[in-house]
């Protein structure tokens, strides 16, 4: 039996009023299932529908259509039971009581999860030790760094020892050291030792590659494909990726008109534009690409790369994981 099954799930949001009223299809007829003990990744750009999906599974959103089953039981018909089986971790620091200590935060949530005082104290001590927060356990959370707050959030999601964990962008905004710690903890502690079933959303391809047994690419509310990271990479055995970093701008369509170019993506950050071109032999298209860029763009670097998961995503969807598809910034990420 699958630990988690999502069947034909559809979630719409209505935004605006009067003539400006519109409907956003955040999750469009999505289906997938996760085996017990598996780490299943949802990989896609901001606004692709990842967080909406996780919130539906967490019962925080009620979908328009479809079913979500945990160990064969409908979560909306058994919502309190389902909530006891799920632990949720989201990104962002503002999910704890900053004026309380780690211990007081955990004690409060332990009461909501129905732990007896004896169970609670034992579990809190174990988790704080495991996550390296024991020395600061009685300090107010407002004094914690972002990484420490995320560790405490992780401890809260594990308080009731849930069978299923929903990790929504767990390393977003963390420095590399904390990110590494969280990733190692997810793989070693949660999956290998505790055999948790994990639904992980991320837009970091290396995170998905490192942690996930299977990955669903999600774009514009739809699941594009579900495979293991290795299967995805094997899909592009005869492809190369040309990356050109420059200062300036270029039309993606102009690049895609170059013969043999299969897909291109353009992404700008901090004044630097990154153009990625997927083609069978990138050296054959380099001069044509540079001609399209012309003299008005200042070239900073040219690299010939092996395809990554992100390139597979571009190949499948034409969109980059760094894109931002958000139409509004409410519940969605």
């Amino acid at each position, binding site marked *: 039996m699958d630990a988690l099954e999502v069947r034909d799930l559809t*979630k719409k*949001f*209505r935004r605006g009023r009067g003539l400006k009223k519109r409907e956003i299809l*955040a999750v469009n007829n999505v289906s997938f299932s996760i085996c017990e003990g598996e780490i299943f990744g949802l990989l896609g750009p901001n606004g692709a529908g990842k967080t*909406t999906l996780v*919130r539906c599974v*967490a*019962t*925080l*959103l*009620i979908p328009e259509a479809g079913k979500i089953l945990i160990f064969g039981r409908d979560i909306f018909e058994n919502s*309190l*039971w389902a*909530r*006891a089986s*799920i632990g*949720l971790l*989201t990104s*962002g620091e*503002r*999910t*704890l*009581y*900053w*004026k*309380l200590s780690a211990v*007081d935060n955990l*004690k*409060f*949530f*332990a*009461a*909501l*999860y*129905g732990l007896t*005082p004896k169970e609670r104290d034992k579990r809190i001590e174990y988790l704080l030790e495991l996550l390296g927060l024991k020395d600061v356990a009685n300090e*107010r959370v407002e004094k914690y760094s972002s990484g420490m707050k995320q560790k405490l959030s992780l401890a*809260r999601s594990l308080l*009731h020892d849930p069978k299923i964990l929903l990790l929504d962008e767990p390393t977003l905004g963390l420095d590399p050291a904390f990110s590494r710690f969280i990733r190692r903890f997810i793989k070693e502690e949660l999956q290998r030792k505790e055999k948790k079933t994990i639904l992980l959303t991320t837009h970091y391809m290396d995170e998905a590659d490192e942690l996930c047994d299977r990955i669903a690419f999600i774009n514009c509310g739809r699941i594009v494909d579900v495979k293991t990271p290795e299967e995805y990479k094997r899909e592009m055995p005869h492809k190369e990726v040309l990356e050109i970093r420059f200062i300036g701008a270029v039309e993606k369509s102009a690049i895609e008109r170059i013969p043999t170019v299969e897909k291109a993506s353009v992404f700008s950050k901090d004044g630097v534009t990154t153009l990625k071109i997927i083609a069978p032999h990138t050296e054959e298209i380099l001069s044509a690409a540079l001609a399209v860029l012309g003299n008005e763009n200042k070239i900073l670097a040219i690299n010939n790369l092996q395809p990554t998961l992100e390139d597979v995503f571009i190949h499948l969807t034409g969109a980059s994981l760094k894109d931002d598809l958000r139409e509004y910034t*409410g*519940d969605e990420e």
Partner: protein
Amino acid sequence: MRTFRVIKAEITKTAKIWLTYPIMIIFWGIFPLVWVLPFIFQGKAFVGGLTSESFKTLTGTGNYLSFVLLGAIISTYIFSGLWGVGNSLREETYWGTLEYMIISPTHPLVILIGKTVVEFIYATFMVATQSLVAVFLLGLKVGLHQLLPVVLIVLLLLVGFYGLAIAFAGFTLLVKEVHGWVHTLEWIFYLFSPIRYPVEVNPITKVISLLIPLTYALVAVRAVILLNKNILSLGKIILLLSIMDAIFLAAGIFLFDYLEKKTRRLGTLAMH
């Protein structure tokens, strides 16, 4: 047992957070001692003292100050409840903790009952302080035999009122607006129930006041304390408050459940 643990956890959490704001403790320590001064000055300015014959023809008592003191003390429960219970889930939204409460296996209604108990304890502390000030410093006369009937009337008022406050908490989850609504309700209560003045002074306020349970509670409490009436003579009011309790509590629970689900359907639970 589990519900009790949730309520206890909510009390502990709120007290610990509250104690981290020392200025609030100082404010609420002093506030119960000074709030009544404007009423005393106002009464003296109007009638040259604290009793009035024309006031007596409307209310049965000429003691304007005692009338206002009782109105203010009892309404403390109402305004504190509106802010405290109505705003409590919105407060969790600001802290970013609401979703983590909702995804726990504790029914949201139990969480809200915990918050209501916290608010009741807090309001009772305020009311007790105000009452001590009113009795020992301002000369409000209350006999020990009058306490039990007053407590009964206040409890009858609060059961129904907290039902409304629970519905209001659900409503604020949906509309994302607390201050405007609370202020509006506050002024409706001030204008159309006899908190500060006898509503009989105006035919419109007199009629509208009949729709507000606070009116009946204030009439009953004043009848017991100021007119020395026996609770048995207030049978009609007690019955009316009991019926209102049943209706408001059931409606409050139903509406909260409906509004909380509607908010999850709209996807606006964590929105500010």
